[in-house]
């Protein structure tokens, strides 16, 4: 029997060293590991490099807490409201280095690492300033057709942090709904923290092995955090808390206000139970759709 990898969230986050590169927000607006991000802020894990396609609010919050040296991403902002003011301020003040990507180039960077190859070729990027300004993307000639292609080198994060519906204590996980680059990120990273709504017996995971795209040997530690993706939605579990995003935009345009917001929503909130008490809106799934039956067996 393998050993359990279950830790409480703060112990799991303590495993992440300052100066680490972390891929998160990998399912785009879905299943963003906000609880883990807030714990990073409370622990003050700094000098971070953040990696992801579009981060929605999470990257902006970590930047607000002054933990981030560098962002490697395609889009950083607030999907409901537009601008991420802390990100914008940090870049304009020269406090934050940004490596500009497209969503596909981030996806291919992680996919290359996940596949164990140094790069993947693409027909995207060519003609853009994202390509032209980069010293990472290279132009290559397809030896078969002579076509020009762009090469996207692998990114291998120190950590991936992902939020899923359920995981075994060993780290095998079921995640459904759109996945973005979640599975590529897990396979690309040197370590993975799986934050699960629910930790279940291994037999639950093994009852549906085709749903298991994250397996134990990629997973360093597992934490159970119900509502850990709030305010982002999680398929089958809870809806997006849009007012939170709008409120955040209104309250973080200014540096001092952003500090107040962090104090109220992160520093003074010791755990997820206390956090959820602050949410008055009903985000529960009102009309569940049950997946059609699937059987295995012998």
């Amino acid at each position: 029997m393998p050993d359990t990898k279950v830790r409480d969230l703060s112990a799991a986050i303590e495993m992440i060293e300052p100066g680490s590169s972390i891929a998160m927000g990998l399912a785009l607006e879905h299943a963003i590991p906000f609880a883990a991000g807030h714990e990073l802020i409370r622990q003050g894990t700094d000098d971070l490099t953040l990696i992801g396609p579009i981060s929605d609010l999470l990257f902006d919050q970590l930047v607000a807490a002054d933990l981030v040296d560098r962002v490697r991403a395609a889009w950083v902002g607030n999907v409901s409201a537009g601008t991420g003011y802390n990100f914008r301020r940090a870049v304009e003040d020269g406090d934050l280095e940004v490596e500009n990507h497209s969503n596909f180039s981030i996806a291919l960077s992680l996919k290359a690492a996940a596949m164990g190859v140094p790069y993947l070729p693409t027909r995207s990027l060519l003609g853009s300033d994202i390509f032209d300004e980069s010293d990472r993307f290279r132009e290559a000639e397809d030896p078969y057709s002579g076509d020009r292609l762009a090469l996207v080198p692998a990114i291998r994060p120190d950590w991936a942090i992902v939020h899923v519906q359920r995981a075994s204590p060993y780290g095998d996980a079921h995640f459904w709904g759109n996945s973005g680059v979640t599975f590529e990120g897990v396979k690309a990273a040197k370590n993975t923290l799986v934050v699960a709504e629910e930790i279940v017996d291994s037999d639950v995971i093994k009852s549906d092995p085709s749903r298991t795209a994250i397996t134990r040997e990629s997973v360093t530690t597992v934490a159970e955090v119900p509502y850990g993706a709030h305010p982002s939605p999680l398929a089958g579990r809870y809806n997006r808390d849009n007012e939170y995003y709008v409120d955040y935009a209104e309250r973080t345009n200014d540096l001092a206000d952003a500090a107040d917001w962090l104090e109220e929503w992160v520093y003074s909130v010791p755990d997820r139970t206390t956090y959820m008490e602050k949410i008055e809106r009903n985000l529960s799934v009102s009309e569940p759709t049950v997946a059609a039956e699937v059987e295995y067996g012998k």
Partner: protein
Amino acid sequence: MESEAYTDRELMVAAAAREIDDGDVAFVGMRLPLIAFQVAVSTHATNALSVFESGVVRDDPADGFLHTMCDLPNLDHAVSTTSMIDIMSRLQRGDIDVGFLGGAEIDRYGNLNTTRVSSGSRQIRLPGSGGACDIACLSQRTVILMPHEPRRFVQNVTYNTSPGHGEGGDWRERNSVAGGGPETLVTTKATFSFDDDGEMYVESVHPGVDLDDIVDDFPWDLRTAKDVTGDAVGRTDPPSQTVLDLIRKFDPDGFWTR
């Protein structure tokens, strides 16, 4: 008055919806295109399919308002909820008929900037590409939606996030940019096409808008349909009541369209 019966953004959504042909596979971005696809598939394009870079594939409107492509109503009863590589691979294979884009800046060849702009001496950082660069490079055609603000129309984009027709002519081919590039720009005042050289021209002005008021918004000599096809600049069709009803069904509080 017709012009008071709907908002500028409702008109843009209606115009964008018309750009989705029946049977198209449409790459739908955030905000207005989210609603435009739902309108199209509910009216003339019942066989259209939508794909979202987050991994969602849908063949019908979501049953509930969408702030984002990942809101649960967009995942519920989707045809498929898959990965970004899966969706982007469809784009790279050439299987996406139409993609939607927006921008902070656009130039005459439809190049778009969503990365950074200057305002006086200040460099303003914008959120970045997201999937826009990929859609711009790889869709068979693109449709651009933008508020009609003169500062957005520039001689040269500060940063070419999402290539349009580049420097015009055969620029895309010479630079191995695979897809077809911009076909239509819809602003809050007019609809534009792109001529054989890849340069935008006014196709139609929206109800209540005077062509003369528009040409001054551009820092270059804006071409019109008359210059390109010989036909007079048209008048954009206002949204029908059916389409307006649908827009207000899909955006009941006007979060995106008011």
